[in-house]
C-alpha cells in the first residue's frame, strides 16, 4: 500500500525553502490576525498556493509571492473575523507555569494594543517593524502606495502609543 507521503514526495527544494521561513511567517501571521489557529490556516493556505505554483516561481520571487498571499489573506480574514468577535475579549491561553508575570502582562498589552489597529495598519506595522521590510517592499506586498504605507504607519504608531500610554515607544532603525 502506498502511503500519502510516498504518493506525492515533496520537492526537496520547496521543503527546504519553507522550513527556513515558516516559523517567522507564522509569527508574522499571528501578529496580523491575533489568532494562532487562524494564522496556521492562513500560512498553510499560502504555502499550498506556493506549492501549486512552485515550478513557476521557484526561480523568481517566491518570497514576494508567498508574502503577498499571506498578508492579503490575513488582512481580509482578520477583517471578517473582527466583525464576528467584535466586543468579545480574546481568549488568551493561560500563561505557562513559571512564566514571568511582567512579561506575560507586557505581551498581553501589546496584543491588546494591536487590536486597536485596523487590519491594514496591523499588517503594515508587522511588515515594517517585525519583518523589517522597507516602505517600498511593504507597499508591494500590500498592494498600495508608499504614501499609504507612510500614512498607515504614522496612524498606527499614534494608536499604539495611545493604547500603551506607559510605554515610551521607539521605532528606530526601521528602513
Amino acid at each position: 500500500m502506498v502511503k500519502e507521503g510516498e504518493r506525492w514526495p515533496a520537492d526537496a527544494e520547496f521543503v527546504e525553502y519553507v522550513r527556513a521561513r515558516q516559523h517567522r511567517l507564522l509569527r508574522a501571521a499571528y501578529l496580523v490576525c491575533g489568532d494562532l489557529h487562524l494564522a496556521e490556516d492562513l500560512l498553510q493556505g499560502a504555502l499550498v498556493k506556493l506549492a501549486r505554483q512552485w515550478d513557476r516561481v521557484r526561480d523568481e520571487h517566491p518570497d514576494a509571492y508567498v508574502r503577498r498571499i499571506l498578508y492579503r489573506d490575513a488582512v481580509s480574514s482578520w477583517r471578517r473575523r473582527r466583525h464576528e468577535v467584535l466586543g468579545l475579549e480574546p481568549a488568551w491561553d493561560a500563561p505557562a507555569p513559571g512564566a514571568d508575570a511582567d512579561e506575560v502582562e507586557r505581551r498581553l498589552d501589546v496584543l491588546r494594543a494591536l487590536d486597536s489597529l485596523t487590519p491594514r495598519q496591523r499588517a503594515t506595522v508587522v511588515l515594517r517593524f517585525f519583518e523589517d521590510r522597507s516602505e517600498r517592499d511593504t507597499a508591494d506586498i500590500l498592494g498600495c502606495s508608499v504614501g499609504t504605507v507612510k500614512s498607515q504607519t504614522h496612524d498606527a504608531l499614534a494608536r499604539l502609543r495611545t493604547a500603551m500610554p506607559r510605554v515610551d515607544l521607539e521605532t528606530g532603525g526601521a528602513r
Partner: protein
Amino acid sequence: MTTDLRDLLELASDDVPEVDLAEGAWRTARAEQRAVRRRVLLGAGAAAAAAAVTTVAVRGAGDEGRPAGSPSPTPSPTRLRTADVGGVLVHLAPPPGEETAQPPYRDAAAVGLASRIGFTDAMRLPKLGPDTGSPPNTASVRAVFLSWAPDGRRLMPVLYLPRARGEQYLACPGVLLDQADFTMTGQGMVLDPRAIRDDRLAIVFPQPGGVLVLDARTGTGERIAVPDPGLHRVGWAKDNRTVVAHGGEQSWLVDTGSRRVTRAADVVHAGWVDLETTGSSSELRTFSAAGALTGTRALRGPAIEVDGATVSNTEAWAAAHAYLGQTYAGAIGRSQGLLAVQGDLRPTPRLLAATRGPDVPKGAYRSLAFGPRDVVVLESRSFPGGADRPTLRLLAWDVIGEGLAYVGEVGPVQGSAGGFTGAYAL
C-alpha cells in the same frame, strides 16, 4: 525608559510554536491538482470525448491553419492546444460552436453561476425599492444587469441574487439611470467589472455629472455630484469606500463616505492591477487600495493591444481582452483573445486566443472576474449563422491548468454598450 516596537512584537509572538507545514502543503497541493483532474475527467467524460473528436475534425478542416509555433503534441481531452509565440504561451480556444462541449466549470455553484443567467422581461420581475412594498434584500449581489425602464428611455438595474431564498432577480425601479453616448457603440452604459462593491451590497453607476450608488438591500440610490458631464466608467477601489470615475478627459476619486470629490492628478484604477496599452507598449500597472498608481512594468512578448477592462485577483493575476499583433497573426492565425498576466512575477502574458471566422466579432471576449484557483470567468460573444443578436456564453479559463470550461448561457442584453451583459462579483 524607551521600548523598541520591534522588541515588543518579538515578545508578543515569542510563544508561537514551531510547526512543520512544508510536506503537508506540498501533498495538499498535489492532491488538489489530482482531484481537479479526476473530477473533470469523470464529470465530463462524454463531453470531453466529443470535444476531442470535434477538435480533430476541425484541425482536419484547416479553417485556421496549423500554428507555426510549437503546439502540444498530445493534448489531453481537457486541455487546450497551445502554441509558443515569442515566449508567450498561447492557449488556442475552440470555435464558438464547440464552447458548450467543454467540460463544466466545477466551481460554478460555489461562485453562484447557474447554467442559464438572465431574464427576458424585466417588467415582470419582482421589484425592490421604495413604494414597492418589498422586504429588504439580505442576499449578496453576484451580478447586475440593465433593462429598459418603463419610459423606454432610461435604464433600470436588475440584481442577480443566486443566494436569495426567494426570487433570484430583482428589478430596482426606484433607481433610473440616464444613458451615455458612445462614439463606437451608440447609446448605452458600460458596467465596470468593479461596479459591485466587495461586500456585494452596493453597486455604482456612471451618470452625466455624477455617480449613483445603489444600495442593494433597499433598492434606493444616492447620487454624488462630480463636475464632469462625460463620466462613462466607474468602479469601487479596493478600499470599498472610494469610487474611481473616468470621464472623457479626466478621472476622479469620489469618497462615498464624506462625498468629497477629487480630480485625479495621475492614472487611477478601481482594482489592484490593470493592463493597458499606451503608445506602442503594453503595461501592467499596480494601484493602491484607494486607486492611486503605484507602479508600471512593460509586458514581455510580441506586440499586443489591450482593449478591454481588466479584472484581477489577490494573487495578482490580471486579465483583459486584447488584440494580437502581426507576430501572433502570422504564427497562429488568430488576432484577438484574452490576455492574462501574473503581476508578482516577470510580466509575461498568457493568452486565450479566439478563433477567426464570420461568427466571431471583434471584441469576442470580455473578462468578468476571477473565480477560485486562478480561473478567469469570461463572456464570449458570437453570431452563429449570421444571426442578428449575439449568442452570449460564460466560459472559465484556467490560466495555469491550460483548460477551458463551459459555465452557461447568458440571456439577451439590454442597454449595455458594446453588446455584453452586466458586471459580476464572484
